[in-house]
């Protein structure tokens, strides 16, 4: 593992530094308290910087952190002291772009909270146990947003109740639309 580019955490915080969604992949922060403390001091340190047009970067507690702010959302990606900064930046960029696509360009905290499931799935598609799965924003979003009934399953395999439930679901959705 030591040679492989790895990510220690992905953080999505709000304008007050509170958690929207976070995911840790390293044992550096064993308890929730240490995680919260990390988020708090990181937020305090980066809050005043202008990371809106270009991603910014800082050294923090022996870690390299790249970050970008949009509206009231703060995106962070943390990697080890020795990590290639540009790789971390590409992860950050994928994270940020995927969220932008998923939230249909209105990237803010409210929209993120309403679509929390998408955010969780998105984080899951970017990093798996610290290893980079995908860094292309559109691809990540594409993997997250395939929200349909599993049409690949043959009808014969479905029980009557399942088929009914599926039909009902279809029906209500089309009504709601």
């Amino acid at each position, binding site marked *: 593992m030591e040679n492989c580019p790895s990510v220690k955490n992905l953080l999505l915080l709000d304008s007050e530094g509170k958690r929207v969604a976070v995911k840790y992949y390293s044992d550096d922060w064993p308890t929730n308290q240490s995680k919260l403390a990390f988020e708090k001091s990181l937020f305090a340190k980066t809050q005043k910087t202008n990371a809106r047009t*270009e991603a910014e970067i800082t050294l923090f507690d022996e870690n390299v952190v790249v970050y970008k702010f949009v509206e009231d959302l703060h995106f962070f990606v943390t990697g080890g002291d020795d990590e290639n900064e540009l790789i971390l930046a590409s992860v950050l960029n994928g994270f940020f772009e995927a969220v932008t696509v998923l939230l249909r360009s209105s990237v803010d905290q409210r929209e993120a909270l309403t679509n929390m499931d998408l955010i969780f799935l998105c984080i899951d598609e970017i990093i798996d146990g610290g*290893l980079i799965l995908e860094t292309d924003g559109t691809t990540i979003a594409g993997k997250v947003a395939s929200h*349909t009934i599993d049409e690949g399953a043959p009808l014969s395999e479905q029980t009557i109740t399942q088929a009914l439930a599926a039909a009902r679901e279809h029906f209500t959705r089309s009504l709601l639309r």
Partner: protein
Amino acid sequence: MAQFVKKDDDLDGEEYSPFLGIEKGAVLQEARVFNDPQLDPRRCSQVITKLLYLLNQGESFTKFEATDVFFAVTKLFQSRDLGLRRMVYLIIKELSPSSDEVIIVTSSLMKDMNSKTDMYRANAIRVLCRIVDGTLLTQIERYLKQAIVDKNPVVASAALVSGIHLLQTNPEIVKRWSNEVQEAVQSRAALVQFHALALLHQVRQNDRLAVSKLVTSLTKGTVRSPLAQCLLIRYTSQVIRESGMNQAGDRPFYDYLESCLRHKAEMVIFEAARAITELSGVTSRELTPAITVLQLFLTSSKPVLRFAAVRTLNKVAMTHPLAVTNCNIDMESLISDQNRSIATLAITTLLKTGNESSVDRLMKQITNFMSDIADEFKIVVVEAIRSLCLKFPLKYKSLMNFLSNILREEGGFEYKKAIVDSIVIFIREIPDAKESGLLHLCEFIEDCEFTYLSTQILHFLGIEGPKTSDPSKYIRYIYNRVILENATVRASAVSTLAKFGAMVDPLKPRIFILLRRCLFDSDDEVRDRATLYLNTLGGDGSVVETDKDVKEFLFGSLDVPLVNLETSLKNYEPSEEPFDIYSVPKEVKSQQHVEKKSQTKKPSGLGAPLPAPTSTTDAYEKLLSSIPEFSNFGKLFKSSTPVELTEAETEYAVNAVKHIFDGHVVFQYNCTNTIPEQLLENVSVIVDASEAEEFSEVAIKPIRSLPYDSPGQTFVAFEKPVGVTSFGRFSNTLKFIVKEVDTSSGEAEDDGVEDEYQLEDLEVVAADYILKVGVSNFKNAWESLDPDCERVDEYGLGPRETLAEAITVVTNLLGMQPCEGTEVVPKNARSHTCLLSGIYIGNFKVLVRVSFGFDGPKEVAMKLAVRSDDISVSEAIHEIVASG
């Protein structure tokens, strides 16, 4: 419509959240919908989202709750809703079920693993591999191998990444997949290639030849993904490190690294540039192309790129400052960078690469910059300036001015302390800087808000001030403190005044006047100190103690550990009998306290570290000289580190320190009684010196009483021929009288039983006669010694795993101080030179240059060159090595 809704919500203010007031109990209740016969996928998804949200906010589920949720969730596999299934996968990973629970979902997950839907396959693999154990893994191995070569890249990546994780727990199984992985390395999909390469390398990482082959074939081919390319660069530099020393001249694979500097992806260019700068023994010709691309990055619009470049150049500047000077102009423009990390890195790089002539210009630029950065960065800059000044002592004026200027500006404690420490170091190291430095400090305490710094500076002034050409000019500054400051600082100022009085006779009458004024101070500590000093200095007309006593009293250190003094004072009950400082035990509880003591003893450095060995020796010296039997042994040459003579967790814990004098050796046994029911009395160590012929026992100092858990020390002294390095082995037996203690009352019985306790042997070896003393510039020191006193010889050290191990053996054998960080062997080096320095008994300086190299497989050979003040000492060192 959507627009409308949004506006409405805006009125609700910032607090809007679908999770507002979310509560664990309620959500767990809601999770019952998972059990509905007719599932509502939408609602189920929402509930899972809420559960995930709770976990994400740091809420934790009890074992029972987690199991409950897990079982409910497994029911959701019935639903065919893709979105819901995704959420099910997620929550299973978050709940990390126990192995007996896993069984319930494995069949569902295995079905998904073979589904026609790519998304199912990919995710089921990731989930299953996360929760699987060894036996189950063999069952699904077949599917995983298939998945690795799946035509869908997402599925292949999922299997490969899972493989990387599984390699940690089940390496044997994963290693069987290398054919499939090898095929995946050739994949057209960028990320599959990346993941496959990572896994393949990890499977083979212990096989040097295989890695080398892998690198050779891939560096020729086309690796598409930038991430995979970065990996390949890392593996390549690893191969270079391992094979580097064998080939002279051209470095293998350097061309590949250099070609990566022209790659189109920035991350690859940077990875390659960084790899080149980190090559061991990199030449300036090899460095140039890498520095050039990094220089281009310095002017990029992206902060990340600038940061990466400047950080790498900063590291290069430590080893190859000249290679970086080309970038100085770009670097200077970064001083005003928005990103303060970048600006600070730029400055510290410039300070490292700068030459004497550019110092002044640089200081001007930094002055503008200092006002708008945070304290933590300022501290970094101050430290860089400190080392710059020690490098160019002639420039101390402008650097000192800079420091005194920033000292006057706003700043927190740590920052101010860093500046004060730097000035103190200048005063110590650069004689010319003394007077101006002291005056800067004086001006600083005129307006210093930190009591700690004020008192420390006053103390320092008391020591250094009287030695200057005109001590009287400091009196005003010090007395001002007495008028204006808080009680702590006033008391400290009174002490400083007294020191001036003691050291500078012409000032005495004036000091007396000032001290007498302090007698009316509102604080009793200040009054007490003034009275005390007036008394000792003779200001109140009484009989003056001898000059030596006064100075010893004022400048000497307290010879009891502060911790012990504190405990004794707490235990002292007010009575007719005055507190007796000699009743305070001088023994320290453990080695840690010894160190603490020696630090507290010398606060003059404002916390600046002093050479540790001398101060520990100091502490021991005090201790030994307080024992009359040993007082005529002369000066203590060396005290060893404590040697444990008992196993951990035995009834009695004993360790020993060897004190070496010119004609004597004293063993100090630190004993601890770890049995609460026992009181030991008359504790001593019986030493059998039959295997140490040149030593004869002269004195034993037993411990009168050794209660539970309070360490005591017993000593045994030996005489040995003066100036001869005598060696020997000593066997030790602890002898004592045991008395039973009633733990409830704490009283010991009157009658005791005599008992013995066998201890490990103690040896006096060559290293005990050599002091670890470092030199700052080994080359100069080496050349200053007479080449005629040099002795060179070669030795074989036999099989050793690493060079580092060989170095440890030799340094321990000789007991000398490695210099200039040469005790660290670069990774995979085939040869290494270590520089050692020390003082041989009789005060002979000894320098040793040892070159190690592998001579055949694992056989280490060593060339030892010794120079010293005396040829016989050089020979003695060789004798030690030859017999060691």
